[in-house]
């Protein structure tokens, strides 16, 4: 089992279990974690799955592609050096214990 820790926009800590092969977005949605809307269902077209990744893990993730980097411009005001779109990150055992802060979706 891989444990993922999300901090919802209001600061609530949610520790949840991930299944291998799921994306971090899917883990959040499946557990009803607040702050991930996933409008596009994970095809990197909405940026409503934005999270700030635990710096200790950030460098271990596969680098983001151009599309994701471009999509992150949509949330520029919430973007940080450790920003990622969670639908683009596949869960594996190496992510056990990762902490993700969710800045929240603005509408």
């Amino acid at each position, binding site marked *: 089992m891989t444990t993922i820790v999300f901090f919802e926009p209001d600061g609530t800590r949610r520790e949840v279990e991930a299944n291998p092969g799921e994306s971090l977005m899917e883990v959040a*949605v499946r557990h*009803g974690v607040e702050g991930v809307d996933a409008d596009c269902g994970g*095809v990197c077209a909405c940026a409503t799955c934005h999270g700030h990744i635990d710096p200790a893990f950030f460098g271990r993730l596969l680098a983001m592609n151009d599309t994701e980097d471009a999509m992150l411009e949509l949330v520029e005001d919430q973007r940080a050096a450790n920003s990622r779109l969670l639908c683009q990150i596949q869960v594996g055992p190496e992510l056990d214990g990762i902490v993700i802060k969710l800045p929240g979706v603005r*509408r």
Partner: protein
Amino acid sequence: MPHFDVLIVGGGQAGAYAAIQLRQQGFVGTVAIAGRENELPYERPPLSKEYLLGDKEWERLLIRPASFWQEKAIALLLGLEVTAVQPTARQVTMNDGSSLGYGKLIWATGGEPRRLACPGTDLKGVHVVRTRAHADAILGQLSDVSRAVIVGGGYIGLEAAAVLRKLGKEVTLLEALPRVLARVAGEDVSSFYEAEHRAQGVDLRTSAAISAVEGLDRVSGVRLADGSLIECQMVIVGIGIIPSVEPLLAAGIKGENGIEVDDFCRTSDENIYAIGDCAAQANRFAGGAVLRVESVQNANDQAACAVKAILGEAQSYAAIPWFWSNQYDLKLQTVGISSGYDAAILRGDCAARCFSVLYLKAGRLIAVDAINATRDYVQARKLIEEWAMIAPEDLVDTSRPLKDLPRL
């Protein structure tokens, strides 16, 4: 009679998101969703894409897991259709004869796929794609199909064509108008997609007129007005939707092609809201024209708008329309509304399969179609929100990002 403080009719994208937003915004009253489909709320876009292809299993389409609705105390009354609304009594009647009372009603019923108006459309093997049941019916038949005809060159038809080609089927796509995507995109985009589909082996025919779907019990072919017959074992019709609004219209709520709503998604009855594909609203990105926008973006943003109004924090709807469509390895992203454009500027190289088309009206950027060009899509979104004016000769200059171009 059960009573809910907020009763949502339709458990699709907009209805589900309205319920999610109510709880997220701290609403503590009773909430129910009455939905005709006997399914937990799910996303429709994959029905013509990954789900049809077999790339994404059903559970991954769910908007939230079953436990979520329980934890949030959102009652799901599934398999029930609302057949009548009594606005004065604030109650609705269901197809099982029961009634529900409401404080506020949110109408989020989407639409019914438009059917072909020619003989033979009720033959076995003639499909539409709006629901899981529709997609499953197609999937259930696919192994017996070598040739399929797709009717309609909109996004859904084109996506279905791409999937069926990937699955090795012979595909003919029939579009009644002179070009595909005619209602939503400019000519450059249409001709690009026509060429792509043809290169992928789709027999794509525009200005095609169908006189009948033929077959005994099952479809065996599609007869065109010129007398020719296209043999096939399956027909998929993707020619738009008709909004599901009869019960509200019958109750005297204003509307025609969709239920008319104000800037706060409120109908002509102050206790009834309408959101998503079935709602017609003045859109500031279409010069204030009243229209129905059929997209996940619009469903979610209107849901959030209606919820704010119900919670007494009304804010005018101002969300910019955006949309995506994935076909083959092409990622189309659209932002703004292009209708009424007077100039379309091609930025980038169609042959490189990475370009965007920028639509201008009176010199201002109103919409963009970006194909494998996410950065243009993202940056154009901000420019459209600002009604930016940029010189056409600058817009074509791909050596500079859109956001760095000088404004006039």
